């Protein structure tokens, strides 16, 4: 049996979608399918894709709207120092070339106007993607728990599908705009499936882009779903140990830090405590939530921004989210630790 050749994973970031499609078709053919090409029409879309999969090379259009290529290259260099990067532009100048190389690009190329030009770019990029760096320090640990990831997705009001699997069970949890709307695990659906997936003692999970499920089987706030899952887990006999499965490439790249919930507080709108976990000073935290509500109300008086939704607090080692609504006060703090 022959082992299939490794496919290089290439991400092109360019707001010209026609150009992207041309590149995808030509470069896939020229590489004899040794390249797998993804396209992103904006920097933020590219970062979303990079969170879900590992890439060997990112090619960035310098002249993108909103966040220009130089800024984006700097961010890539900080977040993914080992990722190879190339800058491409239709308006090459010496100044721009220097700026892109200083921002972390290994290669600066001008957009071609002929098929021959495209072929030379392919050759240059193929050289770059097959070039091997000296082996260096590597090795990461996966210490992020499933409830932590769900919590982060819900707090961030994200839409995604969490694919969970181990050798005994596989399933999916659907999150739309921060709401858990559906879960399926084997034959089970709804909250039963959600509880089953959260009770697994080992296995792996991956975040996938959101697609609407065929049915919606879960309603209610994610905080209470997670609390109920924790309660069921605490009251259940311990699950048999399962041999851990090796992480996927994407997991290995993504799991450079651990995430854990450091504190949770849930109150009714008038400040009556409903639930707290590891909150050192409940009264001080409730006072902070009331102050946040007051600040938000003052801002709302000055700008027609509508109802206050939430405050996100970015800390040096984690973040916190505060919701101060008429019917509830919620504070959740998440701590991150660098795993390197």
């Amino acid at each position, binding site marked *: 049996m022959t082992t299939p050749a490794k496919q290089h994973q290439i991400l092109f970031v360019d707001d010209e979608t026609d150009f992207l499609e041309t590149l995808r078709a030509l470069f896939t053919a020229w590489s004899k399918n040794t390249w797998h090409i993804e396209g992103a029409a*904006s*920097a*933020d879309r590219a*970062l979303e894709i990079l969170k879900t999969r590992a890439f060997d090379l990112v090619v960035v259009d310098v002249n993108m*709207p*909103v*966040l*220009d290529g130089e*800024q*984006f290259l*700097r*961010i890539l260099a*900080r977040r993914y120092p080992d990722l190879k990067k190339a800058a491409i532009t239709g308006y090459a100048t010496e100044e721009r070339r220097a700026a892109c190389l200083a921002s972390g690009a290994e290669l600066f190329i001008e957009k071609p106007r002929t098929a021959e030009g495209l072929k030379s770019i392919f050759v240059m990029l193929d050289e770059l993607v097959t070039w091997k760096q000296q082996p260096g320090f590597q090795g990461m640990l996966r210490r992020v728990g499933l409830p932590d990831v769900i919590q982060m997705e819900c707090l961030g009001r994200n839409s995604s599908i969490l694919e969970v699997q181990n050798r005994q069970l596989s399933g999916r949890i659907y999150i739309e705009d921060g709401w858990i709307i559906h879960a399926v695990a084997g034959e089970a659906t709804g909250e039963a499936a959600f509880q089953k997936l959260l009770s697994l003692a080992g296995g792996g999970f991956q975040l996938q882009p959101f697609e609407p499920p065929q049915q919606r089987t879960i309603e209610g706030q994610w905080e209470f779903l997670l609390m109920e899952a924790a309660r069921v887990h605490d009251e259940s006999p311990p699950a048999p140990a399962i041999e851990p499965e090796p992480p996927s490439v994407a997991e290995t790249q993504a799991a450079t830090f651990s995430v854990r919930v450091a504190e949770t507080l849930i109150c009714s709108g008038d400040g009556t405590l409903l639930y707290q976990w590891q909150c050192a000073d409940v009264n*001080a*935290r409730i006072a*902070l939530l009331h*102050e946040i509500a007051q*600040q*938000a109300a*003052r*801002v*709302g008086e*000055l*700008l*027609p*921004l*509508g*109802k*206050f*939704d*939430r*405050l*996100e*607090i*970015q*800390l*040096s080692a984690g973040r*916190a989210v505060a919701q101060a609504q008429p019917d509830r006060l919620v504070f959740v703090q998440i701590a991150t630790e660098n795993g390197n």
Partner: protein
Amino acid sequence: METDRVNDKLQQWLDRCALATGMFGCSIRLPDGVWISHNFNDLCPPTAFDEILRRLADALSTFSAHGFAPRWLTWTFEKGRLRVARRPDGLLLALASRRDSAAANNLDLFTEDFLTLDLKS
């Protein structure tokens, strides 16, 4: 003059931010309390924006009193998002954007770039 050069660099940086679709106000406060740039549209008149920035800057101090040292705060409303970030050198960034716009989706990237912007070179 060194201050002028730094201010020009910050001004250019803000001008690029202001181009993002959905950005309706952005500003940087220098450590001496002077706001060097504002960009507005009808939703965000200058007087209201000044007052909001002052309040949000004060809110950063509120968190210190509760034991937090925020790198940045994001206030999300039904129709808009406000971001306030402070650098160790005392520069304070304030961005106001329409919610679910390109500007709002890129607040983290703008902030990250602001926090690491090299003003010495």
